[in-house]
């Protein structure tokens, strides 16, 4: 606490010093940038001077150097790539790239059959053309490097590998490249491209008035300005973010601790018929989440069994999930989420506990450590160490937990002081309302980009500071 206060007191002085040093640091940064560029240019000149005519030929035309070294298979392949790229860019590539910047100029009119530009497709095609361009540049550099490598091998008097040798290498020394090629391609197409596309959408006006066949335009940071502006959207975002962080931390802790306690309880020797008792949480886990959530919504509804019991006992029914019951509904959400998630944590903890080093417990018992002490100093560190990555995954899943409040309270909007959201909505629920219910795709994309930034930063910080990262070899 004292150290925190000390650092707090020092903060203004440090901040002033940081700002004072800013001009000098900026100058150093740009000087180093200039120096690096100059170094790069010098090394290129050096490379060019020391290269023979074959390497220079490959610089001018892909594969030519290889052909001059009589590496015909590889040379023809590189040449074909260059011809393919030239054809692609001259036929469609440059049009796609140009379309990426304009996002279309003629709006289609499906009523008259007038064909027009589809901004979203143009953005996708432009993105694709950029990927092809980058891929081409990578292959171009590899072509030059390959020619240079051949030059050096010849200088050293080594025999150049044949095309067949290099193909064999792909199944032997470079097998990892062959194996990883398809997954990397898959990840690029199915994960990276959609993420980049989503990021780009955040910088457009893709929304209710700008859905194809209407044209979409680039709008820069307007979506972010709307989110952070002083309107209700900004305050809604801040309120939801605050609740979202609290929810993610609370639900991760509750699920984790309850799962661990359940696993410890069922691991006790005194418990008879362990398999039987473990069956119940697994059953809860096995039922699809949306069915469980719908059932819970019914249970807590005005006509549900819980209110029936309250009425039968002479009480006044409670609108558990009502507009006014913010914290009650949030608590119900937390518990329902625990119902859905604790079984998986329990199973995980059960597996980890079965590998716990028994000798350490033996030593602790001999030393007279209490059960709580053993839990605190042995069980918890051991389980936490093994499950930190799972904890981070669980945190991210909870941060983006769409189902719980969508099913429990999705029909209530808006709460007082919120725009297009209620007070139990998480950012992901709000994102859904904005983009799916209201077609505000650009705002939705901006929100999802912010979610991405928040979850990645938190996950990285937690992981880097965790024992699983810092003391990797502890339990090996």
């Amino acid at each position: 606490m004292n150290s925190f206060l000390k650092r707090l007191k020092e903060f203004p002085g440090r901040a002033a010093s940081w700002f004072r040093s800013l001009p000098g640091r900026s100058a150093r940064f740009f000087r180093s940038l200039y120096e690096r560029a100059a170094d790069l240019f010098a090394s290129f000149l050096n490379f060019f001077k020391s290269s023979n005519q074959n390497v220079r030929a490959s610089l001018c035309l892909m594969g030519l150097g290889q052909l001059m070294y009589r590496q015909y298979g590889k040379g023809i392949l590189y040449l074909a790539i260059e011809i393919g790229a030239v054809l692609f860019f001259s036929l469609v590539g440059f049009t796609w790239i140009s379309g990426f910047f304009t996002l279309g100029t003629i709006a289609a009119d499906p009523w008259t059959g007038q064909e027009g530009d589809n901004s979203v497709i143009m953005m996708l095609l432009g993105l694709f053309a950029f990927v092809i361009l980058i891929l081409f540049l990578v292959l171009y550099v590899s072509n030059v490097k390959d020619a240079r490598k051949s030059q050096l091998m010849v200088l050293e008097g080594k025999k150049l590998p044949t095309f067949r040798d290099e193909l064999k290498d792909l199944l032997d020394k470079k097998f990892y490249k062959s194996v990883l090629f398809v997954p990397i391609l898959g990840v690029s197409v199915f994960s990276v491209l959609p993420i980049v596309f989503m990021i780009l959408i955040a910088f457009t006006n893709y929304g209710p008035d700008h859905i194809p066949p209407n044209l979409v335009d680039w709008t820069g940071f307007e979506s972010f300005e709307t989110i952070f502006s002083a309107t209700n959207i900004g305050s809604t975002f801040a309120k939801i973010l605050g609740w979202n962080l609290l929810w993610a931390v609370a639900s991760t802790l509750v699920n984790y601790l309850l799962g661990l306690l359940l696993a410890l309880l069922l691991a006790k020797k005194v418990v008879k018929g362990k398999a039987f008792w473990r069956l119940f949480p697994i059953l809860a886990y096995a039922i699809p989440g949306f069915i469980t959530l719908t059932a819970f919504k019914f249970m807590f509804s005005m006509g549900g069994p819980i209110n029936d019991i309250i009425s039968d006992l002479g009480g006044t029914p409670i609108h558990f999930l009502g507009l006014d019951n913010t914290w009650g509904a949030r608590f119900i959400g937390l518990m329902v989420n625990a119902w859905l998630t604790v079984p998986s944590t329990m199973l995980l903890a059960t597996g980890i506990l079965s590998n716990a080093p028994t000798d350490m417990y033996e030593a602790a018992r001999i030393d007279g450590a209490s059960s709580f002490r053993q839990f605190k100093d042995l069980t918890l560190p051991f389980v936490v160490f093994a499950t930190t990555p799972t904890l981070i995954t669980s945190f991210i899943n909870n941060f983006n937990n769409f189902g719980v409040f969508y099913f429990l309270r999705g029909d209530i909007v808006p709460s007082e002081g919120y725009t297009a959201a209620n007070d139990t909505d998480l950012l992901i629920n709000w994102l859904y309302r904005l983009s799916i219910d209201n077609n505000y795709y650009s705002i939705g994309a901006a929100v999802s980009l912010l979610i991405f930034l928040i979850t990645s930063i938190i996950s990285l910080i937690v992981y880097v500071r965790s024992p699983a990262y810092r003391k990797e070899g502890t339990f090996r």
Partner: protein
Amino acid sequence: MKEKRIILPLAVLAILLVGCGEPGASSTGGGSGGGYDPDDPTMKPDVIPAVFEKFEGELERNVEIKVLENGNADKVGYSEELFDAFNEAYKEYGITAVDANIGEYNDLAQMGPYGTGPDVIYQANDIIMGYVDDKLVTPLPTYYMPDYSKIPATAWKAYESAATGERYTFGIPINVQTGLLYYRADLLPENWEAEWDDDKNGIPDMVENMNDLYRFSQIRHEANNDEYGLVFSLNDFYFSGSFLFTYGGYVFGNGDTDDTDIGLHKGDAAIGANIARTFAGVMSEECIDDSAKLAISGNMASGKYFASVTTPDNYEVIISALATEYEAERKGTAEECDALARENLLSVPFPDFPLSGDLEDDSEGFTSALTMGGINGFAISSYSKYPKASLAFINFAASYEMVCRRYEMLGIAPCREDAAEIAGELSKQLFDKVDEGAIYLMPSLSSLSQVWSPAGSFFGDLAEDNLIRPVAERKYDTIEKIQAGLETTSQNIYDAIHILGV
């Protein structure tokens, strides 16, 4: 492209041969020498507007059109009957209509532009008109609709839009849908004819006006704590909206065409909302959320509710539950119980509201309830490759015979005057209400989707106020507070529609 090359000369030929039209439809106008006149849409213009050119020329041959019909129509076999009849009628052209085989509530925006959507869709007017802004449904050449004059102008209005400049019609009305009051005749007091029929018209007063229904609900609940009079989910704005509309509230301004003017709080809407709040006091707590809606058949059958409000498509579900209840009570065979259920479950339009705005004061008389309703109809996707065949299909489906058959099989009120005549008293009443503008038709703007949840949440909160909220915490115990609540709701809806626009 190939198709375009064929259609364009055909269109030119068709312009020259004015009056040829498409087979199966007769042009009712002869051309006035001007352009398309939205005020007289039956008149075929001499110069065909570009948006209607695709309907000119000869009917496509040997094509298949995909139709997205209503889920209930599929279930009871009406869709199949309609497709068979149409396919038979257009056999010589080789046109066949088939089920689009997609969910009833699929979004045309996700399919149409990519060529995977249906050619023809059957939906409520708010859904169809929600597609207009993005040009997903195409304007219809009403001069090729031979039965245009058989459908009331108010119903056509539900399918008109000038959102993109010119005023066009985007759907052909088939039937009218609105909330009705369903009640159990066998739960009426034995002496109802003497005590509860002041005007001696043979209809119990408690299903004719809200004041008597309120009084009856009080008596019934006081006599047995587990029984109620009228109960329905007040959080469903489709039904609870009538409390506001009857007293001057509205959804959008300028005849529901201006979504910058949200009018839930306008006129004396707060008085209507106060009636809803007061009535909630004698309803079951299930009226606060969806519980009453979800349990309507069981609670009507068990007699827990004397009456409830729902749409006619739920009629068969309630009948089935009631017949099962009668069987359990050993009131006869399955057929007898079914007949008894049909005899006892009756429906009437929503009861009249007191002009005084007070459920205990009927000295000023009553005014008809203005209930929200919708006009279901057919529309054609802008991306249909066979617009002429699709037009032929919707004209066929809107014909007298098919609309009557739809009524027989589905029990829904027709929009055609001639079909409504033979469809029974209630259908006729609903038709007349549409004709007179006495049904508040769902606005034909896509921004309507932003209205349901906030307005429903307000009514749920209003009901909660008088049912379970402690006196000290009540939020709407004065008209002023209700008015403020309605104003906030209108503002929330405005924000959802406009504030997010980048």
